């Protein structure tokens, strides 16, 4: 196979840090080359340089053997480089066809858009991708998987030869990931080179041909996927041996902390389960099964319509998050950047936000007391931050998650619900979060984990409730749990449900 892209000796320095230190990367035609490494390893900087969003200090980029300069995203596009970012860059109010051809609309006389030709061209591209999609549908009405197809189609009409996919599976269900892989295989067949960035190692082993590991801005290794195993890959990424990925500590089950009986709300129907102290309780299910909705109802953020919830055997009926927090419940939301943290505030303010009343002296917030409390959690949770006064936006994903956790520890939560706790967090930081969950469980705090990553649930949970279409279709113990069983329960749509839909 021909070498499509080679990046050599790329150096990029920012004040105080070397983001990339003589990094090299190569991509062949029709190859899926995975790029992995912890956050801050330099993956995204490297891809921004390739996409023309960031200028390198020194280095050489060659496409099909010819040296090129990529001073801007527009030039990158002309060179056949397409980048699909994690948060899609689509206009929700425009149709599929309008999005795909945005800026490239076919025109007829008087600069009017030739709508027929537009839809026809986009339909062709969709056929090429093996996807059926109404080109007139508004993008805002589509699910995440379909939006990704639109993004891919967008790069195809621009004659993409090198396609960068940054965490493409982040918001997809397992099934959707399968069909995305089908699309990727088709693109490979057409000679497109794909750079695939993901934290999920399973995917890398399934779809990748080669893998390049970056750590601290340097090349660690490039290898054929067939020749490495999971353990080796993690060692390269983290730079040390992790004894195991999931440091599960078995604990004795204590007294009941949460009991949910016949809960109904919105799509949720007849939900029953209990959580005890000392156990980590998982909730599995496909995206859209109602897992986050359930968390929101328990947390008082959405109204409950039926059933009862008991917290430590007392009826618990919060009408707002404030009341739930008062009672000792904390929710680490799914999208921590949008719903968990106040991005314009600093670490100290984010930690103290939910329990300022303990820091009041008269009308004033006692800053010394606030700093002391926040510093205590920064030390306890090993939050890596230059100071309490820096904005949380400068912290890495793992440390941001710890800041949210610190907030709920400060409110003295008895029950913590983690919604997708490790999404977008790298291997090393994941390991720390898991250890913290063990600590919490050991201290008698009830821990619920909602996750789309089955290995994580299987690795960390004592029991796993599986949801499908607003119901719990089964609760499995650690011994009973297998990927297959969970998937079977997660897709157990009964006839009644299907007819309701």
């Amino acid at each position, binding site marked *: 196979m021909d070498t499509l892209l080679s990046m050599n000796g790329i150096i990029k320095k920012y004040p105080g840090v070397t983001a990339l230190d003589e990094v090299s990367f190569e991509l062949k035609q029709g190859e899926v080359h995975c790029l992995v490494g912890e956050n801050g390893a330099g993956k995204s900087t490297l891809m921004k340089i390739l996409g023309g969003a960031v200028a390198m200090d020194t280095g050489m980029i060659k496409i099909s053997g010819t040296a090129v300069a990529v001073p801007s995203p527009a030039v990158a596009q002309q060179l056949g480089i397409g980048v699909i970012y994690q948060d899609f860059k689509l206009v929700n109010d425009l149709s599929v066809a309008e999005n795909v051809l945005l800026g490239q609309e076919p025109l007829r006389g008087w600069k009017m858009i030739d709508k027929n030709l537009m839809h026809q061209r986009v339909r062709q591209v969709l056929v090429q991708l093996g996807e059926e999609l109404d080109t007139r549908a508004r993008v805002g009405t589509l699910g995440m998987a379909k939006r990704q197809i639109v993004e891919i189609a967008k790069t195809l009409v621009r004659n993409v030869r090198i396609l960068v996919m940054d965490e493409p599976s982040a918001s997809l269900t397992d099934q959707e990931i399968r069909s995305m892989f089908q699309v990727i295989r088709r693109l490979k067949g057409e000679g497109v080179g794909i750079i695939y960035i993901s934290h999920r190692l399973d995917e890398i082993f399934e779809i990748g041909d080669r893998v390049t590991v970056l750590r601290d801005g340097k090349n660690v290794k490039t290898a054929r996927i067939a020749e490495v195993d999971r353990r080796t890959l993690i060692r390269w990424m983290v730079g040390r041996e992790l004894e195991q990925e999931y440091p599960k500590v078995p604990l004795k089950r204590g007294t009941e902390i949460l009991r949910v009986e016949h809960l109904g709300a919105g799509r949720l129907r007849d939900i029953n389960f209990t959580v005890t102290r000392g156990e980590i309780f998982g909730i599995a299910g496909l995206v859209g099964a109602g897992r986050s909705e359930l968390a929101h109802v328990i947390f008082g953020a959405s109204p409950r319509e039926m059933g009862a919830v008991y917290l430590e055997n007392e009826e618990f009926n919060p009408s707002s998050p404030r009341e739930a927090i008062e009672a000792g419940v904390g929710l680490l939301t799914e999208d921590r950047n949008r719903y968990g943290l106040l991005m314009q505030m600093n670490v100290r303010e984010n930690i103290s936000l*939910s329990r300022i*009343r303990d820091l009041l002296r008269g009308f004033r917030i006692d800053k010394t007391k606030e700093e002391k409390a926040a510093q205590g959690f920064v030390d306890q949770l090993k939050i890596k931050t230059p100071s309490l006064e820096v904005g949380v936006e400068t912290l890495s994903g793992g440390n941001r998650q710890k800041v949210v956790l610190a907030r709920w520890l400060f409110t003295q939560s008895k029950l913590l619900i983690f919604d997708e706790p490790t999404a977008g967090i790298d291997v090393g930081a994941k390991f720390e979060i898991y250890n913290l969950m063990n600590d919490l469980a050991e201290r008698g705090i009830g821990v619920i984990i909602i996750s789309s990553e089955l290995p994580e649930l299987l690795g960390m949970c004592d029991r796993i409730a599986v949801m499908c279409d607003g119901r719990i279709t089964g609760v499995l113990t650690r011994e009973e749990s297998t990927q297959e069983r969970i998937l079977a329960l997660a897709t157990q749509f009964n006839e009644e449900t299907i007819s309701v839909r």
Partner: protein
Amino acid sequence: MSADHSVKRLSAAAAEYGIGVAFVLELVLFAILSPYFLTAENLLNVTLQTSITAIIAVGMTFVILTAGIDLSVGSVVAFAGISTTILLKLDISPALAYPVAIGAGLAFGVVTGGAAGVFITKFKITPFIVTLALMTIWRGAAFVVTEGRPIWELPEGFAVLARGRIAEIPIPTIIMLVVFGAAHFVLTQTRFGRYVYAVGGNVEAARLAGIDTNRILMQVYIISGVLASLSGILLASRVNSGQPNSGLMYELDVIAAVVVGGTSLFGGRGTVIGTLIGSLLIGVLRNGLNLMNVESYVQQVIVGVVILLAVMMDRLRK
């Protein structure tokens, strides 16, 4: 060499204090251009002239910090002034008339701010629309109540409120400084202040952190209403009458002062110190141009240009 050095230091200072540096430059400029500018009398005069809109701008800062807007302030100024002046003319003892009339004017601020808050939080109508409607309603009501005629012949003491001085300092200036001091304290030192920034930064994240976001929003519109009413009463005292067309277009001057002061229209970022400097910057500009006998139409053009420059400077800082 040393000139180069001082330029560097100046630009470094500009980077850190932005609008403050612009304000100092402006003071220096007018001090050079007009000998009368830097007299104590003139400077006090500027603060007196600025006080009316500056007090409203404090309330507006709270509102804009929550990513909202209050377009009704100009009309609230008029209606509060009219409420107070009408009540002052009631035939009761002055000892009773003043507290009742001024109290009622301020209470009106609570009512209009509360109404705005209810429509914004309970009915989920955007602040722009709600306060635009209130702007029209109170302006119309002011004309209806007065039948379009000003309210004259007020008790003699009323004018003292805006025209009196304590230790040479005009009373409105003192009120303005007290309002700014209190607002600064509230925003930087109290829980309420922290919550205002949180709600403005991300209302859903704030709600999920356990903050009663609707209550905070209600409160900021009430603060804005009350401070606009306070200004309305001061303005009525200054012109010694209740004028149905007073405060016209004040909302724009006030928003300009807040924005020039560095508060983000998207919420979550800003200070009242910035708003004070923003208000004074525009006030000093008008005063300086008056001293130099610049025609009032030309003044408008210059003020507009300065607003753009000031905000641009602030953007360059970030």
